[in-house]
């Protein structure tokens, strides 16, 4: 299915001619990475991104280069960006896991019930666009089956058409629902990565307010509100505090 949607995407979008130069840039960056010149590789990868182009693999490679330079904040950020485009990629997940194991904070997330885990795993089978395309395909199949029901003269065909159309209607619904959930998760709910070595969260937006907790570089937080130059953040374990906007980078 992912392959199919990839092909569909490739068919739908015509890539501009400039893509070729950027591909060369990616090649160069990969070579620099292989040679161990990680800071140069970072420069090149960032240049590709500065040209308003992205790919899961690009973010993954950039994350790797940052990891090798032991800059965990940017590394985790880029792995997260890669996962947003390709949520089911095993390598990205593995590397993100390793990078997370190196950061200072060990914040235990609220544990998920098994069906929540399954649902999450199911959602992560595809990215937003993947689900949207699958949904569209199912929609077409559903309409096909419905036509079979409507226009066939043979009772047998009509029966099959009816039950298949019900099934595909359900599938279409699930796909669009999943697409929406992924969209909500990745684009509406703002997640951010701490970029400074150490930041103290306050009880209210303002330097004078009480310190609540300290988080370190690489920790992922959810942004729940913002006020002036402050973000209200929520940690994976449910703690809430206010930090300066400059200390984090939104995924």
């Amino acid at each position, binding site marked *: 299915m992912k392959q199919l949607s990839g092909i569909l*995407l490739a068919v739908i979008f015509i890539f501009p001619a400039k893509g070729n130069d950027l*591909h060369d840039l*990616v090649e160069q960056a990969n070579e620099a990475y292989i040679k161990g010149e990680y800071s140069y590789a970072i420069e090149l990868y960032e240049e590709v991104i500065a040209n308003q*182009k992205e790919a899961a*693999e690009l973010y993954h*490679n950039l994350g790797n280069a940052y990891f090798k330079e032991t800059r965990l904040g940017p590394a985790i950020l880029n792995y997260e960006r890669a996962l947003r485009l390709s949520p089911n990629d095993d*390598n990205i997940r593995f590397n993100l896991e*390793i990078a997370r*194991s190196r950061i200072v904070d060990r914040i235990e997330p609220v544990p998920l019930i098994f069906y929540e885990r399954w649902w999450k795993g199911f959602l992560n089978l595809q990215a937003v*666009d993947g689900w949207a395309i699958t949904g569209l395909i199912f929609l077409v199949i559903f309409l096909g089956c419905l036509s079979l029901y409507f226009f066939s003269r043979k009772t047998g065909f009509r029966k099959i058409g009816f039950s298949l159309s019900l099934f595909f209607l359900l599938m279409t619904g699930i796909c669009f629902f999943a697409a929406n959930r992924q969209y909500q998760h990745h684009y509406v709910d703002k997640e951010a990565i701490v970029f400074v070595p150490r930041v103290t969260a306050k009880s209210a937006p303002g330097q004078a307010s009480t310190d609540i907790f300290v988080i370190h570089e690489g920790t992922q937080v959810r942004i729940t509100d913002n006020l002036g130059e402050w973000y209200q953040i929520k940690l994976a374990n449910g703690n809430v505090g206010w930090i300066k906007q400059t200390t984090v980078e939104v995924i």
Partner: protein
Amino acid sequence: MKIFKTILFFFFGLLHLAVSGSTIEFKASAPEQVAVGEGFRLVFSLNARPSDFQPPSFDGFRVVSGPSQSSSSSTQIINNQVTTTISFSYSYILEATREGILKIPGAITTVDGEQYTSNPLEIRVEGQTDPSASPGRPREQTLRPEGPAADDLFVRVQASNTSPYQSEQVILSYKIYTRVPVTQFSIERLPSFQGLWTENITPSGQPSASTEVIDGVSYNVAEIRRMAIFPQRSGKIILEPLEVECLVRVRGQQRRGGLFEEFFGSSPFGSFETVEKTIRSNRLELEVKPLPSQNRPADFKGMVGDFDLGATLEPAELAINDAANLVVTVQGKGNMRMLEKPRVQLPPNLEAFDPNISDNIRSGRNGISGSRTFDFLLIPRTGGEFEIPPITMSFFDPAKETYVSRRAGPFTLKVSGETPSIAGTPGVLAQEDAQYLSRDIRFIYTRPFELQPIGFMFYKSTLFYVLFILPLALFVLLLIFWRRQIRLQRDTALMKNKRAQKLAKKRLRKAGSLLKDKEESLFYEEIFRTLWGYISDKLNMPVSNLNKANVASAFKKQKVRDELAAEFLKALDDCEYARFAPGSAEMRMEETFEKAYNTIVTIEKELRNNKTNKGVRKKQQ
């Protein structure tokens, strides 16, 4: 106050009560004119025993040494009158730091609870007088008549390199230069050596003396201390002066003594006196360069100097569970003591113990050199060949100003024998889990991949909505079209149905006229067409599809009685028969006409009955 007291004493004649309080004089004395950088002596003298002394601020001067305190007392008995003279003095060696007329305010002292202030001084300071003199050498010759002149005795520090790299070895040498005999010396104060790692490399035993000529004057030189220093940080590092206390033998005659000493002088020829003198070395500034960050090898661990790396593996062939020794030797000159254990990447299943480290580090005259040996004990636990990758070590060579890497190896260890299997169970192989050595991130994606514009999302884009609505709209349109088509078809069927009888009548009329005209073949053809046309319209079947078989089944569907259907078919048959059977003329034509007409009428009736009986019935083809 002082005057008042003196007057009091004078008038009341209470002189016999005075012990030390006749008149208290607190005087400061210094030369009136000095040069910048020239050392001179400032003496505060007091003819009483003070309980407290507060020096003034020496603004514009640098205190080279002091205060040094001295006291003397003498008692005289004249006509039963006891007079005790006490003299106290505080002396400073000062150096003027700028030109002009500089003022030294009076010092404050307390005697018997009374405070006294000395006279303020004005000193005219002129420009440097002796530019050839080496800086930092204290010049006190003019005012130290009792000691040797500064030109005759001083300490100098020399560094082998004043702009070394960080961690580079620098040799410091402290030397005493003297033209007077020094009987003894002791180092009073060592510099703090902040930011430096030091090691004393002074040769043991009495310092050997040599002769050196400076500015045409020859000196006896003795090296009193030699050190190897390693700067630990880059930037400017200042070494404070070293202080040495010397016992110097000087000729007694050279001393300016009082009348008393001259009179009772122990030797009229002038004996040698031992004088204590403190001398300080010059300050030394080191400009430490940082190690270049360019081309720094990954395995560089701060070693600076010149080193060699050697390694041996002994024996290269052995049996399982026997021990082999991997001996790694680093030898060279530099910060040897900071040498860390080289990283040896050993293959798994080759057990290694922490290395046994032995040092052979000498601190000689030219600094620290020597070797450090790491002895790794390796025990192979499985058979086969073990490949030990090269052992590498990097250091910075300050002479070449580059990083240098040395490597030794690789080595191959051949291990004979088989891995012992689980005892007692032949045929069962010892299985091991895959060994996980360390966790690292997975490699980058090198395969080519498509780049998409940032922020572009297909979901919720216009294209998405178009693709979403398009099939739905198409489907609905199709559905509407289909419905209309069906309705249209039904309408035509209905029309045809209604028209069928009329058409049949019309055709029959035409047939009737043909009958009158006796046009036999045309008549039969017309009757035939009438029947087929009627049934085609009535049953909504295209004429081309008609044959006797499906007409019969169509009749059955319309619930037309069998005999009626048979009658209709019979009429068709008759018509066909009559068309091709010659002879029988009018009579048969008449009969056929009658039959066709009757059949149509009965079927029409029958169909209408069926319709009303069964209610509204959907017409199908």
